């Protein structure tokens, strides 16, 4: 599989590409507005990054501290080395409780572990309760974005999907009507569930509690009704102190959607009376990534999705073209760490403009790590992928006039800002054997439009 060939499928429909591009750019703009609202934004990012670096440097200590405190709170703590262990732990708990039906709230980790097919194979009904997730579940697809799972779907497609599965009337894609239908459908599922499964946004070693953030309240609807709650978390979600939450909660929603905070920031310290609360701490390759000095900082990621919303390649090629659970810039760092061969093309699915690093709330040097991956992959395979991938990428951008115009606008900015080593390096086939001209501040088209307007 390779990103360029998958992207080709998406870019075939130029209208769709433009629509996708604009939807995400709109979210990016909302992020900017929220971030620019107060002066300590940069300080927050810096602190968040330092807290994460520190937490990773004492991760063994914090994991054990968390286990001790959570256990004292009455939470049952489990450890899973990989996806298979994770799924087995979940299923064993379910078997013990005779669980037949579960509601799940958005958890990229369970996607990563392929939990749904595993449970379904064992006769458990799994309902994804986040609306976007439910949409892609009904469509038998995977999320194309970690925060906006159904961002690639048009309202008419959702309308048809709901007619088929939820027996709605044709509504011409009326979002209010469709959401109301989903509300009724999912409320039934919440009422019938034997167990609820959630992800974890942050776990706090000091207090042995964890935090789940949603806008819909689906995680809470599930767990506060069912007699059993299992939370799955990657071990990198651990933060040391209670007060560290202040930093991360302030950054998360603003970076993700431009909201000041998610509607619900729900904190779990003890099981509800008469019920059980389990948490599974999952490695699944994270300790290996921890040992890779060059890519270690990718474990800072709090899954806000900002790097996807801003990435000119992601916006124009769609999340599915990455063929990995976490797509976009951060996914292109994480995925080759899991399977380099399979994901060799991903680090090349980037313009290296640095916009991802600029928006990242935990200051991951995303574009630099992507560049480093290119070198590693080129060294370990041969020089071909570099040429192949960047040529193909630019190839499809340039065959689409509308895309080309936008990419040009962006490219001019990027060329003004990019250091020389990035423009003239052996991997950039465009800088090879030619001095690129000084990029003009405006394209002719922009200049023409501006002046024509001025002159009336």
């Amino acid at each position, binding site marked *: 599989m390779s990103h360029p060939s998958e992207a080709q499928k998406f870019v075939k429909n130029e209208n769709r590409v433009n629509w996708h591009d604009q939807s995400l750019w709109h979210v990016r703009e909302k992020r900017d507005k929220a971030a620019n609202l107060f002066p300590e934004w940069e300080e927050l990012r810096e602190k968040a990054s330092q807290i994460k670096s520190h937490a990773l440097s004492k991760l063994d200590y914090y994991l*054990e501290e968390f286990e001790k405190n959570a256990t004292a709170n009455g939470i049952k703590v489990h450890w899973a080395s990989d996806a298979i262990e994770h799924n087995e732990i979940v299923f064993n708990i379910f078997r013990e409780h005779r669980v037949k039906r579960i509601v799940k709230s958005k958890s990229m980790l369970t996607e990563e572990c392929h939990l749904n097919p595993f449970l379904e194979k064992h006769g458990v009904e799994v309902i994804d309760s986040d609306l976007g997730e439910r949409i892609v579940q009904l469509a038998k697809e995977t999320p194309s974005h970690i925060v906006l799972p159904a961002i690639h779907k048009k309202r008419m497609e959702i309308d048809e999907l709901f007619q088929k599965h939820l027996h709605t009337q044709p509504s011409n894609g009326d979002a209010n009507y469709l*959401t109301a239908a989903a509300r009724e459908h999912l409320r039934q599922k919440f009422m019938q569930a034997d167990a609820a499964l959630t992800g974890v946004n942050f776990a706090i070693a000091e207090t042995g509690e964890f935090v789940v953030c949603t806008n819909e309240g689906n995680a809470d609807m599930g767990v506060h009704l069912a007699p059993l709650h299992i939370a799955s978390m990657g071990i990198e979600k651990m933060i040391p102190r209670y007060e560290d939450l202040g930093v991360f909660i302030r950054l998360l929603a603003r970076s993700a959607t431009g909201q000041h905070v998610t509607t619900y920031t729900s904190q779990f310290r003890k099981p509800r009376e008469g019920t059980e609360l389990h948490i599974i701490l999952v490695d699944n390759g994270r300790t290996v990534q921890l040992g890779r000095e060059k890519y270690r900082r990718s474990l800072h990621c709090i899954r806000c999705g900002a790097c996807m919303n801003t990435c000119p390649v992601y916006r124009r090629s769609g999340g599915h073209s990455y063929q990995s659970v976490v797509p976009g810039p951060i996914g292109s760092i994480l995925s080759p760490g899991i399977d380099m061969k399979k994901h060799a093309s991903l680090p090349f699915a980037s313009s290296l403009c640095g916009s991802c690093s600029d928006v990242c709330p935990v200051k991951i040097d995303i574009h630099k790590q992507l560049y480093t991956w290119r070198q590693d992959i080129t060294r370990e395979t041969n020089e071909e992928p570099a040429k192949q991938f960047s040529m193909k990428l630019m190839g499809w951008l340039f065959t689409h006039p509308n895309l080309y115009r936008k990419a040009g606008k962006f490219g001019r900015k990027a060329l003004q800002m990019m250091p020389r080593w990035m423009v003239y390096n052996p991997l950039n086939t465009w800088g090879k054997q030619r001095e690129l001209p000084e990029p003009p501040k405006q394209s002719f088209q922009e200049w023409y439009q501006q002046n024509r307007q001025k002159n009336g």
Partner: protein
Amino acid sequence: MGKADILKAVKKNKPEELPIPSLDFPTSNGQDLKSLYQERLAAGGGEVVSAKDKVEAEWIVKERMGDYQYVAGAFENLNTMDLSAIRDPHELELLDMAVFEGLLGVAENGAIWVNEESLVHRAAPFITQHLVLLIREDQLVDKMHEAYKRLRSQEYGHGVFIAGPSKTADIEQSLVIGAHGPKSLLVIMLPPA
């Protein structure tokens, strides 16, 4: 497998210990927290009204509840459902409106903290069709940092910051209020104690 392996791998692969930063964000004083709160809650789809005392607050709730059949929470006179008599939270599905006292409000994002004790049932503020939260002006802090400083000493099994009605934008990014939970959030602001 599991724990021992993971800890061993972390120990082997982690970097030298790095320092943890101090978190001393200044609290902004003199800011009009009430109007900032109002603005930020509105951005999250909630509504704020002021009441001069609890009597007036009760009157506002009474007016809002109209002919709702099932109401529960802070105003005993208005309750048609007794939360403490309910054992199984599934029965809360009938709730039309729930009213709770907030324990802390955050001006920068409109969030109000409530915990299990004030909610009686964890599910109540999520499963109800409409939610009302009461908050006193002197329970407002400016930012999340201050909120967590105050919550430090609080004991809770579950607590939640609520910053608006339940909502989604998963269908072509159009905002729809009332995804799974409450279709509205009304915050009644009371004067300082």
